[in-house]
């Protein structure tokens, strides 16, 4: 055992004598730092943007409060959009749905650049509105992707390992003195293992030494300690898998060029060809959705509801929202078109929710298909797992859409109940609304 520990330690001098490998390690370290810095920058940017939106809407709340005071004092006439009615009061209650970035975002940007992370929610909103588009960005840069830690780990780590390991055991074969080693009562298996272990330990030490400062900077250990532990474990497993593959290549290989060719081909197959093939098959099986069902709801079916007679709309509302039957307006036998018109968004929301369910299901089917082949496509599994730890994957944004929907539902509920109960909104009631949505 001692002999093998010595072999591993001797590897330090091998490494230091190879400037090519040292430079590669330095490049790799720069890439890790650069990747984490990119993540940290986006994390800060999202937080700052959210803070700035919040500051803006606090200003608008102040303005509304002054307006209510003026109406109550009689110094201001009610406008066309009368804020004393629940409909316009709730319309003027700023309610934003934010997707707060997870501190873990420093380690992976995931799909965060493909989705919006803030949205002004109204009773007319839906979870596929135009204003949920992603941030303005150069599409070619987006297509290339950002160099974040996830990318460095998943794609560059194997490359660093190829550079570090391709001539481990290969050099001896190149110079034809490999048998000299084994005659010294050293097993080939353990000899290679000791040398590989050195690089395994070195790589992981480098990674964790670089990750911890960024973890501290983004308060990961206070907010997401468990996720960080999971990420750490995943890093170890991922690295171990590549070490194992490269170990087998070196064990069975002929010489250094043979190792290098096999290693880079393995990388190419697992990191580019297989994910690319699954991507192609997935888009063949599940073509890009042009969302025509959703467009139909947001336009034709919506206009269809607008064209319905008020009494039909009213009876539909009573059927879908049975609690309205206990309201003051429901007890009244006369038809109030203004109340009915203000309630239409309730019916549109039902249609929106139905079609969204369909869209989410079709996306889920595609995801299920991709996930069902993770065993053949392990690199994409690790990539998505990291995205899920950092809450930057598809599912994190689906949860965000669900959260938006819950605010829409709450708005509609309040509008319906308060409008049908003829509630008069004053400053106090408005403050209540503000509290509900913030």
């Amino acid at each position, binding site marked *: 055992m001692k002999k093998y520990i010595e072999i591993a330690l001797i590897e330090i001098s091998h490494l230091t004598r190879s400037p090519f490998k040292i430079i590669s390690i330095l*490049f790799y370290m720069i*890439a890790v730092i650069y990747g984490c810095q*990119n993540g940290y920058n986006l994390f800060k*940017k999202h937080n700052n943007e959210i803070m*700035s939106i919040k500051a*803006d809407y606090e200003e608008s709340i102040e303005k509304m409060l002054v307006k209510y005071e003026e109406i109550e004092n009689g110094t201001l006439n009610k406008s066309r959009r009368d804020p004393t009615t629940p409909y316009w009061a709730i319309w003027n209650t700023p309610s934003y749905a934010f997707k707060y970035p997870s501190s873990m975002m420093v380690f992976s940007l*995931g*799909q965060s650049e*493909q989705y919006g992370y*803030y949205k002004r929610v109204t009773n007319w909103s839906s979870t*596929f509105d*135009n204003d949920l588009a*992603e*941030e*303005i*960005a*150069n*599409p*070619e840069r*987006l*297509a290339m*992707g*950002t160099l974040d830690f996830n*990318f460095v780990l*998943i794609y560059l780590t194997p*490359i660093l390992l190829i*550079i570090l390991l*391709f*001539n481990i055991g290969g050099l001896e074969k*190149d110079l034809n003195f490999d048998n000299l080693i084994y005659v010294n009562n050293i097993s080939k298996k353990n000899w290679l293992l000791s040398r590989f272990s050195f690089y395994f330990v070195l790589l992981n030490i480098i990674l964790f030494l670089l990750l911890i400062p960024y973890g501290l900077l983004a308060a990961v250990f206070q907010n997401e300690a468990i996720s960080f532990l999971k990420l750490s474990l995943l890093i170890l497993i991922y690295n171990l898998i590549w070490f194992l593959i490269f170990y087998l290549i070196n064990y069975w290989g002929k*010489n*250094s*060029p043979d190792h*290098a*060719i096999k290693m*880079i081909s393995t990388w*190419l197959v697992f*990191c*580019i060809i297989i*994910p*690319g093939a*699954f*991507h*192609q098959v*997935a888009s*063949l099986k*599940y*073509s*890009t*959705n*042009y969302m*025509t069902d959703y*467009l139909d709801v947001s*336009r034709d079916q919506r*206009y269809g509801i607008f064209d319905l007679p008020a009494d039909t709309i009213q009876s539909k509302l009573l059927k879908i929202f049975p609690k309205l039957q206990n309201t003051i307006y429901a007890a009244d036998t006369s038809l109030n078109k203004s109340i009915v018109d203000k309630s239409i968004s309730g019916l549109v929301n039902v249609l929106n929710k139905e079609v969204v369910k369909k869209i989410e299901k079709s*996306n889920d089917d595609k995801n299920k298909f991709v*996930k069902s082949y993770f065993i053949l496509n392990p690199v*994409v599994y690790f990539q998505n797992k990291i*995205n899920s730890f950092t809450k930057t994957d*598809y599912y994190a944004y689906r949860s965000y859409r669900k959260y938006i929907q819950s605010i829409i539902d709450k708005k509609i509920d309040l509008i319906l109940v308060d409008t049908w109960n003829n509630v008069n909104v004053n400053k106090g009631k408005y403050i209540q609304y503000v509290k509900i949505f913030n």
Partner: protein
Amino acid sequence: MVNIIINEWKILLRNRAIMYITTVFVLSLIAIVWIGIFQNNNQKDIQLSAQKHIRNQWDNLKPMNPHRAAHYGSYVFKPVSVLNSLDDGISGITGNVLKLEGHIQNEIVYSEASQSISISKFGKLKSSLVLQYVIPLFLIFLAFSSISSEKQTGRLKLLIFQGISLFKLIFSKSISIWLYGVFLLFITITIQALFSTIDSETIQRLIFIFISYSCYYFIISCLTTYFSSAFKNNTSALSSILAIWILWTIFLPKIWGNAVEKIYPLPSRQNFKSIMKEDRAKGIDGHNPSDQRREQLKNKYLVEYNVDSLKQLPINFDGIVMQADEEYGNLVWDKHFGNNYSIFQKQKRLYQISGLLNPFSSLQNLSMGFCGNDMIHHLDFLKKAEEYRRYLVKSLNDKHAFGGSKTGNWKWSADNTFFRSVEKFEYKTPTIGDQIGHYVIDIFFLLFWVMITTLLIRLYINKNILL
């Protein structure tokens, strides 16, 4: 030189492993191109049927007020280019659906990337993926020992003693390896041309693609052969060229791509929207009757028609106001989106300059550009869609103003014949002849690298390798 190339090919053809690999390559390329075309046609059908569906809805509009129709709006779907099956460029991450309506200029939404979990970071397995990543790597594997092996076995000296110059020998070996890449490229392009419906424009684009990839393969072949001759052994040659390959294909594109966005930053969406809103508020508010600028416009029309009130006007003033509002909005759009587009162009140009250090980025730019799937083509589509939006809204506002209704009569409806008479949106991808100017930098750097690598072999071959 020709004899050496023929001889090299004979050796190559005698090697069973190479023959197997070539067969696998050819079959894979045929399959990949065919699947790409199949997927492309499938996507195209879906896009066309979505566009038809939306147009049908428009054609079947029941009589309604033109302004209501402007709010109803229309949708355009980003078309799929013929060569999308070869290189889909940015089409997977850009949106596909754009709503065109009055008052608002929406953004294109619903990208493919947002409809699932993350799959491949390097894109789908299309021909471009094989042509850009796999074949160059294979050329490296073929070339890295081409000279060093001859050196180690002493064959190099024998060849030189037969009277051939060292340059010719090394260059011929590079050319024979390059021809192998060109052979695979030729197969890919031919299958692409055979299986898809192509016109002269597509043929032109395919020729450009063929030339671009050929240049890149030449660079890779020459550089690898040079390294093979410059280094003492295979290991050093291979590790050096692999390091360059990694730097070119993985590192530099990402790092430079991120850097250009930092050098020419784009506004945040929130900022952009609030500035646009501010500027828009300075114009006429079509829906606000107490607006001051509306008053000025009203007075202008009253004088023009020599009447005292809006009711006396033979036209519908509401339509006039809506169009004035729209035209002001267009100016605001031109200013702000124009500014964004100009930032995009600056970013693109700066990214193209990275071709000086990285011919791979020039190749990538040219590949997606010639396939019609780069930012230049995307922005062109958005501009044409906006032009159509302006045409659509103006047609509706003009109908509202001059169609026979009077001011304030919001119940007046235009009939279905009018809606049918509004032309549909038809997008034609710009010809490569018109767009080639955007790619001059990439072409220049690719040719620059061809020259550099040739000169490298011509001028910097160390004669000591014979010793």
